[in-house]
């Protein structure tokens, strides 16, 4: 009987955090604000997105409190509209889009490729400044009156009918969009040009593949969003009339432009998360990912198909019935690569040697919730059932299952997985496993009742609702409070672990990625000598041989 964990830590009585590492190399605020080190920028991003997640989460709390009763009694309807708008804007543009790529991706993508940094370090820093500028502008817009268009900025509501800070918020997203283009471009160049000797495309970890696919989406999609937002701003300020039917414009055009970005944006958010899951499942089952090539190419397939499904947001908006046919069919096709991934991950477990540390628990949570999120997407991609379910709480539940149940679970999984590498210290295992379970329960209680509410027909973005919907809304609000605890716990124990966590050593999980073959926390230049990739990704036999060699040479 062997132990139930793979954690192998150095002897705590003698172990020390390496004196020279990227955290201790330089000190002072300026050394952080002017850094070009991808790891430090990753941490800057991590801190900033956490702040935005906290703000967005508080707004979500307000929404759920308001919906506790059928009447709109806690908030005025206008305030409620502003709250859900800012919740959407902050969570999507300032948390989900940059969450995995800009934090974990920034930190680990170069290390996984055996590179010393991203290809364009200054651009990387610039991307963080753009993100912060956009974020602060968005918060400024929120404090000085807010915006109540919904995160979708639907015209002509956003252009002609509301008197809130549409322009400021639009510009904030416009600016933040460039940060995402910069990150995407940086990743693409890095993956093409900075791979270490021996690192062929099919030896790259799947995390890199999925970030590559997401980067392509960012670079190609975000400019269209920028265009749409600028047109809204121009329509509001000088009335150019592109979306105004009385001037010969077409209000549906905005929807096309907006969703041309915003549907791929869903894949920008979820693909890097899928990359995390591939790493975690492989590491904690000690096995190469089942069907590596299929999983790699399914990321690419999602990126390609993802660009051709945008009009499925508009099935009931009077677009041509033939367009509905085409987009419904393409939506079905984009669901297939996701199914492939899920089953490949499940089969990775087969004949593995599985342990259940926190990252793995979050990954299991991801698989369950993402399957539900994906399958309910099929309800909506099917044109017939979409008529009944669209614009209701079914949609809300569906994308929260994908974005929160999927992406946020993946993000937390990755954060726990790489925390020892980033900080050199372990998080406390028991309490974090508990947090993972609490999050899972709270999540289901919050969002599952919303599927039923949507089927009953409760429209989204309602501040008040008919009384027969109350019971399910009470469940949902109760779940949200549990979910809140589930998200607060990691903040507390991860902060605690910065000082009191056990010293992790180079490779506590016995993982195969190049990022684990160097000290934790890593040197500013990542590796003392550039690695040479002489084996496939997820080659656990290679890892065993390496360990044997080390023991032999030391002994």
């Amino acid at each position, binding site marked *: 009987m062997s132990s139930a964990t793979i954690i192998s830590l150095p002897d705590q009585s003698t172990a020390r955090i390496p004196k020279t590492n990227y955290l201790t190399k330089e000190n002072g605020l300026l050394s952080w604000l002017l850094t070009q080190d991808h790891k430090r920028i990753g941490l800057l991003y991590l801190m900033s997105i956490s702040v935005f997640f906290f703000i967005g989460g508080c707004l979500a709390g307000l929404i759920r409190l308001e919906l506790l009763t059928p009447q709109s009694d806690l908030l005025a309807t206008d305030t409620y*509209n502003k709250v859900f708008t800012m919740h959407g804007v902050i969570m999507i543009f300032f948390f989900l889009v940059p969450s995995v790529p800009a934090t974990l991706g920034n930190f680990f993508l170069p290390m996984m490729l055996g590179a010393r940094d991203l290809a364009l370090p200054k651009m990387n820093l610039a991307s963080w400044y753009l993100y912060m500028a956009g974020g602060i502008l968005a918060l400024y817009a929120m404090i000085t009156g807010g915006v109540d268009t919904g995160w979708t900025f639907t015209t002509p509501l956003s252009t002609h009918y509301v008197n809130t800070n549409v322009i400021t918020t639009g510009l904030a997203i416009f600016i933040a969009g460039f940060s995402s283009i910069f990150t995407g471009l940086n990743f693409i160049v890095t993956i093409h040009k900075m791979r270490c000797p021996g690192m062929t495309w099919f030896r790259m970890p799947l995390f890199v593949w999925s970030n590559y696919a997401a980067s392509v989406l960012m670079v190609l999609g975000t400019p269209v969003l920028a265009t749409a937002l600028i047109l809204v701003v121009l329509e509001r300020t000088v009335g150019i009339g592109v979306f105004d039917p009385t001037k010969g414009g077409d209000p549906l055009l905005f929807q096309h432009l907006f969703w041309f970005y915003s549907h791929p944006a869903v894949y920008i958010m979820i693909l890097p998360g899928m990359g995390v899951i591939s790493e975690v499942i492989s590491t904690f089952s000690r096995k190469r990912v089942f069907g590596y*090539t299929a999983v790699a190419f399914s990321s690419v397939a999602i990126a390609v198909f993802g660009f051709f499904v945008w009009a499925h947001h508009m099935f009931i*908006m009077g677009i041509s019935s033939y367009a509905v046919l085409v987009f419904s069919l393409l939506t079905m096709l984009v669901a297939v690569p996701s199914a492939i991934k899920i089953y490949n991950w499940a089969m990775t477990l087969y004949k593995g040697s599985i342990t259940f540390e926190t990252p793995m628990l979050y990954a299991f949570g991801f698989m369950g919730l993402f399957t539900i999120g994906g399958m309910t997407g099929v309800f909506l991609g099917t044109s*017939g059932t979409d008529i009944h379910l669209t614009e209701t709480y079914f949609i809300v539940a569906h994308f929260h299952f994908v974005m929160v149940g999927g992406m946020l679970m993946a993000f937390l999984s990755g954060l726990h997985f790489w925390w020892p590498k980033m900080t050199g210290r372990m998080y406390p295992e028991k309490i974090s496993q508990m947090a993972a379970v609490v999050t899972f329960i709270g999540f289901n209680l919050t969002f599952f009742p919303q599927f039923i509410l949507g089927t009953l027909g409760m429209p989204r973005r309602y501040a008040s609702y008919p009384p027969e919907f109350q019971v399910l809304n009470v469940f949902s609000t109760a779940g949200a409070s549990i979910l809140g605890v589930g998200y607060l716990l990691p903040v507390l124990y991860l902060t605690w672990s910065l000082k009191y966590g056990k010293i992790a050593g180079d490779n506590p999980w016995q993982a195969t990625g190049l990022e684990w073959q160097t000290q934790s926390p890593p040197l500013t230049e990542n590796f003392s000598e550039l690695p040479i990739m002489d084996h496939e990704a997820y080659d656990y*036999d290679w890892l065993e041989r390496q360990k044997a060699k080390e023991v032999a040479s030391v002994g």
Partner: protein
Amino acid sequence: MSHISPVIWQFLVKWLTNFALFPPEASKIAPQMDALYFFILLVSLVGLTSVILLVTTFSILYRKQRHPVAVQIEGSTLLEATWTIIPLGLFLVMFVWGALIYFRVFTPPPNAMNVYVVGKQWMWKVEHPGGQHEINSLHVPLGRAVQLTLISQDVFHSLSIPAFRVKREAIPGRYTTVWFEATRVGTYHLFCSQYCGTDHSHMIGDVVVMTPEDYRKWLAGSTSGASLAQNGERLFAALSCSACHNTRPDARGPSLANVYGSKLRLANGQSITVDDSYLRQAILEPSQHVTQGYVPIMPTYQGQISEEGVISLVEYIKHLNSDYRVQQTTTTTELPPASGGKVTGGKTGAVKSPAAQGMVNQ
């Protein structure tokens, strides 16, 4: 029950008496759509169960204590093909099935009766062909196909009737349609489901399904004295449309008799079929819609006629020189007025002066 907090007690009572899990099926399409819904639900459950089963079984069989050394497996093309092709096949079945339902919902039968619905911030205004107006309520007869022609006066709205499983966007500047046939008498929710600003959540109302007799009584009791087409006729005169659109040989505009549904060749060479949308566009943007052989001299009425005014005009032109129009007029006038000639929706007298109704744009 003194030991239970009254709040919780109230909540439990409410839960037991006022708790729904599935919406009523009150239209012809509803059971068909629900069949598809449950098919997808079944597939989802099978898919989810298979994932959960695989993960739990492997987690038990191959946990480290039981299976300390992993066996490396590359993958299996056969297995991967299986879980590519089976989901793809199922998704394609859903696609075809869904498309069939979709076309059914948006293709009205030819004998459907037409009701106009105008969405504005934050109310639904319903115009029946007989001239009855309603606000935030819609009365329809049982067992008869009803087509709704929707338009918005301001922002996007969306008319959703969950019990009928239908929903359609009301778009500014464009007619959209949806139809249903109610199969159960009762009162159902009518929602605006597209976010439309401050009082979005107050843009709700009732759909009242009535037996044909009750419906006839309701029509009679709610009449405003003139049918939509009659209003349109007055408006047609008030706006001097007849000065050009007449049957005289030297008329400056084409005659509009029987124009609805006909094929028309435009001055720009395009060939179109005249429908509601075309008539609306031709009134509001005449220079873009000149019939071949005529000069573009018609002024625009953009901003001068309200959506209801346009609807009346369209309804008038639609029935010009057809038996239907005469019929409409007689149904409205022949039915005995109910006590006091009640008009729903508080728009009493609005149609008395067609110019006032039509010309003034809200």
